[in-house]
C-alpha cells in the first residue's frame, strides 16, 4: 500500500510541478493576449473535462506505443511512469488552467499599465506586483491539480497498465484489492483517500477565502 501511495504522490507532485511551470505562462498568455485561434486552442486544452478518461488514455496509448507516431520518435512511454505522467498533465490541465486564468483575471490590467508608467520594468512587475497579487490563486489551482491527479484512474490504467512500483498508483491498487475481494485493505486505503481529499479541498477553499480578503475591493 505504501508503495502505491508513494507512487501516487510522486505522480501528483511532478504533474502539479509541470502544470505550475507551463500552465501559469499559458494562462497569462490566454488572459491578456488576443490572437487568432485562441478559442480553438482553449477548447482543445479544456477537452479532457468532458472526454471519458478511457478515450484520452486510449489515444495516448496508441500514440506512445513502440510503433505509434510518438513512439517511433523515441517517446515509447506506454506502460511507463513517463506515460502516466504525460497523461496526468493533459488530464489535469483544464483544472489548473481554469484556476490560473481566474487568478489572472482578478488582476486589473489598468493597474499593470499604470505600474509601467511608474518606470517599473517587467521583472520587478512580476516579482512585486503580479505574483504577490495572484499567488493564492496559483497555489489553489496547483493543489486542485494535485488532488485531481491523486484520484485519477482511467487514463493511468489505459496508458500505464498495472505495474507495481512503476504505474500501479493508489487508485488502481484499491481497484485490485476490491477485485481480489480484500475489503479490509480496500477500506483502509479508501479512508486515506477520503482524508487526503478533504484536507486538500479544505486548503484550496481557505486559500480562496484568504485571497479574497487580501485583495479586498480596489474599486472606486
Amino acid at each position, binding site marked *: 500500500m505504501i508503495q502505491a501511495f508513494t507512487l501516487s504522490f510522486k505522480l501528483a507532485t511532478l504533474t502539479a510541478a509541470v502544470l505550475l511551470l507551463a500552465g501559469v505562462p499559458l494562462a497569462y498568455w490566454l488572459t491578456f493576449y488576443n490572437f487568432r485561434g485562441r478559442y480553438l486552442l482553449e477548447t482543445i486544452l479544456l477537452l479532457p473535462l468532458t472526454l471519458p478518461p478511457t478515450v484520452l488514455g486510449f489515444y495516448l496509448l496508441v500514440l506512445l506505443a513502440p510503433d505509434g507516431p510518438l513512439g517511433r520518435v523515441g517517446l515509447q512511454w506506454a506502460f511507463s511512469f513517463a506515460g502516466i505522467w504525460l497523461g496526468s498533465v493533459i488530464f489535469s490541465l483544464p483544472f489548473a488552467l481554469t484556476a490560473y486564468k481566474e487568478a489572472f483575471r482578478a488582476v486589473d490590467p489598468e493597474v499593470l499599465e499604470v505600474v509601467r508608467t511608474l518606470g517599473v520594468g517587467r521583472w520587478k512587475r512580476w516579482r512585486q506586483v503580479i505574483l504577490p497579487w495572484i499567488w493564492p490563486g496559483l497555489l489553489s489551482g496547483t493543489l486542485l491539480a494535485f488532488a485531481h491527479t491523486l484520484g485519477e484512474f482511467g487514463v493511468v490504467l489505459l496508458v500505464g497498465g498495472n505495474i507495481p512500483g512503476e504505474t500501479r498508483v493508489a487508485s488502481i491498487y484499491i481497484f485490485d484489492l476490491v477485485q481480489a475481494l480484500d475489503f479490509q485493505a480496500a477500506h483502509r486505503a479508501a479512508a486515506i483517500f477520503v482524508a487526503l481529499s478533504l484536507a486538500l479541498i479544505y486548503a484550496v477553499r481557505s486559500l480562496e477565502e484568504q485571497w479574497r480578503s487580501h485583495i479586498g*475591493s480596489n474599486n472606486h
Partner: protein
Amino acid sequence: MEIAYRIEQPLKMDVQLPVNGLTALLGGSGSGKTTLLKALAGLLPATGQPFAGLPPERRQIGYLPQGYALVPHLTAAENVALALSSKDQSAVSYLEKVNLAHLANKLPKELSGGQKQRVALARALAREPKLLLLDEPTSALDATARDSALDLLESLSRNLDLPALIVTHDPYVASRCNFVGVLETGVIAQFGSPEEVFQRPATISIAKMVGFSNIFEGIVDKITDVGIFLTVDKYKFRVETTEPPPTGSRVKWGIRPEEVMVVRSDRPLPPELQNNVLPAKIARMKKRGTGYCVKLSGPLPLLMLIPRHVQDRLQLEEAAQINVVLKPRYIHLFSSPV
C-alpha cells in the same frame, strides 16, 4: 509644455495643446479625452511630441486613471515606493506632500476614495514627472473632497512647477484651472482661459458643454458705435461685440442662465438697457442647490438661475409675470454659421 499628438486608433485625433499650470481638457463622452491621456502615457500608439516613441516605462509622466489603480496588496508607502528609482528616497516624504504620511501603512481597501487618490498622486510625484496626466480626478468625489483635491493639485502644480493636464467633463473643474482646451471630434476646438471659454464659447456645442442653455437665432439689424442691434422676434436687442457680423446676416446668440436678470420695479433701469427688456411668465421653478432654476415662457423660452438672496428679495412664484433684462455685454454671438 507643448503637446502635438497624432493618433490613428482607436480614434483619429490630431491634437495641439499647450499645457501650463493646471490645464483642463474638456470634452463630451467619446471625444477622445482618455485616449489622448493614454497616448501621452505611452499606452496607446501615437506619433508626436513630447516623448515620441518611448515606452511607458521611459516617459517621465505621472498618470492617474479614474480608478487610481493602486496595487491592492501593497500599502500606501509600498505603492509609492514602486515609483522610486533609488533606495535613498523615502516613500513617506512623498506621502507628506499630499498630507497622508500618517496612513503610510494602510492598504488601499482601508482608504477612502479621496485618500486613494492622494496616494496615487504621491506615487505619481515619486516618479519625478515632467507632466501630470489626470483622468476625471473628481468624478468619484463629493463636493468638499472635490474642492480640496483641486486645491491640492493647484498648490502642487505651482510649487513644483509641474504642468498638469486634467481630463474632465465637469465645467466646474475646468473653471478652476488656469487654461481650458475643448476637445471635439479629435481636435482642440477652443483653447483659452476658463473665462474666455465660458463667456465666449466658440461653437454651439462648446456652449452647451459649459452651461449655456439659452441659445437663439437673430438677424443683424444695424451696426452702431454702441454695439450691434439684433432683431429677435419683435424685439431689437443691443449686443456689445468686437467682431460685428455683417448687417442682415442671420446669427446664433446666447446668454448664460445665471446672467439673465430680473428687472426690479423699485429700481428703474438705465436708459441704455431699455432695449433689452423682455416680458416673461414664470413657467416653473426648481430648486438647484440653494438657489433656483427658473423656466420662463413668453417671447423667448429662457432659463434663469437665481441665487437664494435674490429670491429672498424678489419672492418669485410660478405663474407670475416679470420683466427680465439681457445685458448687452452678457449676450454672446456665435461665430459659427447658422
